[in-house]
């Protein structure tokens, strides 16, 4: 922790809330800006799950939870401001839902002994817990996603994609650039040709990219998009009559709101998934009973069961399991952020525990260890059914090509360790 030169003259301003035992989960949400379409349901799901725990179970292990929401608008400067404003309140874990903000927070949170859970985003090589002691990106990361997309294309082509042309349409930021290395390796391995097309923030202008796709005629298109970029891309793909079953998005490009604007033309669009789809789980009955009917739903309460909402639920559930683990390890109910980190590192998600929580087969079962902060990298595939208005799971959680991803993670994390003079944490 840090040494202060003087007293905090204004600490009172920030610590205005009463001091009592609670588990604080900051939610760096974005309900405004071009990425709000994904930010709102995720923040709603995250908040609703903790409201449910408070209402139904009286918190976790007898300690009430508190969600501190702070609006970032997907902007890194505001994200840093939110981090500084909330960390003093006993924040247990940060889930910034933005790769840019995650990059900002990795060194800061590590220095402050607060864990970060970047679930399916952030810095991929953070899966190497030996270097990134406080960053977790289970259950799957961007490179698992790239590999899962290629695996699915392999499957639909009978296992041979030699000589095929695959285009990557990506958000021109750290997020979108992440999978390029992996896809390049995979293209060497499987012999396909990779074409990369960058789309600049916020992604409303994609005419030239899709014109190029029309000219290059790739067999498949993979998309790493977010926010308004998804809707525009799917509409553009429909406009050039690109076959939707050959168009596959990462899990951040697979929400209902992304496809509905293109109408029937989006039918058959595929997206990777981290969680199960729909609201056909016992937990949702409890959410209806304790949260929605009690008038405590976050936001407008109209997002329940959508893909990003479920992801928010899932993120909150993983946080709950980690808190329980930390309480078990340290024998105290009101844990600190350092204990939370230990809990996350010893996390074990089993099918039985998920069923007990009312979410059977909601996500893959996996274990976290000191060396592996990324889980097993199991990814499912969903497909949009426009007439039914929902995503349907077409392939269950399947492993990804760790032979390619493992060395890449080792290489990138070693570079980070060398840059920052980090010696192994796992001894």
């Amino acid at each position, binding site marked *: 922790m840090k040494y202060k030169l003087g007293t905090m003259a204004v600490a009172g301003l920030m610590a205005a809330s009463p001091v009592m035992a609670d588990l604080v989960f900051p939610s760096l949400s974005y309900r405004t800006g071009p990425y709000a379409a994904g930010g709102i349901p995720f923040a709603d799901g995250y908040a609703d799950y903790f409201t449910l725990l408070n209402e139904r179970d009286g918190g976790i292990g007898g300690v009430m939870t508190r969600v501190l929401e702070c609006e970032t608008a997907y902007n890194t400067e505001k994200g840093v401001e939110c981090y500084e404003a909330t960390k003093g309140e006993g924040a247990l874990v940060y889930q910034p839902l933005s790769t840019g903000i995650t990059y900002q927070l990795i060194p800061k949170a590590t220095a402050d002994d607060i864990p970060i859970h970047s679930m399916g985003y952030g810095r991929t090589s953070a899966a190497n817990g030996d270097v990134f002691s406080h960053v977790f990106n289970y259950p799957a990361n961007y490179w698992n996603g790239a590999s899962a997309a290629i695996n699915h294309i392999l499957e639909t082509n009978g296992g041979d994609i030699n000589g095929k042309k695959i285009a990557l349409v990506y958000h021109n930021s*750290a997020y979108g650039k992440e999978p390029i290395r992996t896809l390049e390796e995979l293209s060497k391995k499987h012999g396909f040709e990779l074409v990369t097309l960058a789309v600049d923030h916020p992604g409303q202008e994609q005419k030239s990219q899709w014109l190029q796709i029309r000219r290059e005629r790739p067999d498949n298109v993979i998309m790493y998009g977010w926010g308004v970029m998804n809707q525009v891309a799917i509409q553009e793909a429909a406009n050039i009559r690109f076959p939707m079953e050959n168009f596959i998005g990462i899990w951040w490009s697979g929400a209902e709101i992304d496809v509905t604007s293109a109408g029937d033309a989006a039918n058959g669009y595929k997206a990777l998934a981290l969680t199960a789809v729909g609201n056909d789980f016992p937990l949702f009955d409890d959410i209806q009973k304790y949260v929605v009917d009690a008038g405590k739903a976050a936001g407008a309460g109209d997002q329940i069961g959508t893909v990003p909402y479920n992801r928010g639920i899932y993120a909150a559930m993983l946080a709950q399991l980690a808190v329980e683990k930390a309480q078990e390890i340290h024998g105290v109910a009101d844990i600190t952020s350092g204990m939370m980190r230990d809990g996350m590192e010893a996390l074990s998600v089993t099918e039985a525990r998920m069923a007990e929580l009312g979410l059977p087969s909601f996500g893959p079962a996996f274990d976290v260890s000191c060396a592996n902060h990324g889980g097993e990298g199991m990814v499912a595939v969903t497909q949009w059914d426009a007439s039914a208005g929902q995503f349907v799971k077409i392939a269950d959680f399947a492993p990804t090509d760790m032979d390619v991803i493992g060395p890449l993670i080792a290489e990138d994390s070693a570079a980070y360790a060398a840059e920052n003079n980090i010696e192994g944490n796992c001894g």
Partner: protein
Amino acid sequence: MFYREAGDFSTTYAQDNQTFPIKFDRYRYYVVLFIAIFVIPFIINDYWANSFLLPFLIYAIAAIGLNILVGYCGQVSLGTGGFMAVGAYACYKFMTGVDIWWGGELLFRLPQFNIFFSVIMGGVMTALVGVLFGLPSLRIKGFYLAVATLAAQFFLVWLFNRVSWFYNYSASGQINAPERDLAGILITGPQTEPWATYLFCLFFTIVCAVIARNMTRGASGRKWMAIRDMDIAAEIIGVNPLRAKLTAFAVSSFFIGISGALFFSVYLGAVEVGEAFGIQKSFLVLFMIIIGGLGSIFGSFAGAAFLVLLPVVLKIVGVDMLGWPTDIVAHFQLVIVGGLIVMFLILEPHGLAQLWRVAKEKLRLWPFPH
């Protein structure tokens, strides 16, 4: 009563020429400096440093830089974000050791610069780039120049996204400030103390402000203002427009580069060019000098403080005190900031600096206005 020239006699030319000729003003200035240097570092914490003081100091430098160009020399620029990016990336390259390649081979690598000189080099590089993009100002004016600088903005962002040499070939395209210290005190990286980063930025802000203030009071500032007021007349009385305009671009870009370098290395620590130095940044700094007051160093500070503090204060009042939903407050913020800008332009087109000037005039006569 207190604020007046009477009784304060100048006995030398130096005294007669000083920046603050009124005794009260001079002492106020010393008190502000004293508090900033000797009081704030002792009571600062992470939250105050990262949410208010660092962005305020850094944006103040950028606003001073843009004010020299737009406010003093009359050359409209929308390239501030791009020039800040040049400062940030130059700082990064000098921090990590500039590597020169030729034909796929590493020719040589400069030694890593100390953080202080890296920031200075950020300013120097930006000054060079600024002069380059200032060349069109010799032929075009007004809106046309604004479009040329807008092109600089987009070109520079594209360049830093496209050429991986600038971000040392990292896979994510981000630049991360490695840990650097000055005489054993950490200035960049996650382990820094808030007082250290604050004092580091404060040093640059004070030096930049003093240089800018004296330049604008001196011969070069008068030339800039002559060009601003009427360039043909200025040429006739012997001002070289080439030199005046290009020095304005160079000095302005130097300051903006310094602010970009500090913004990246000290304040954020990791930066992505499209997000951190986009066109919004150009507009933000332009709004700062419009609200603060064109052609005023004090106005640059006032505008920076106004636009940095307002969103955070609105958030604290709305979310933390009144308990409103965060999205409502975020939307209100846009409405209020927009409304205030329109109100300022109608009621006080010369900005906060003019309010300050009027207040000083009133204070001179107070309490006997007649």
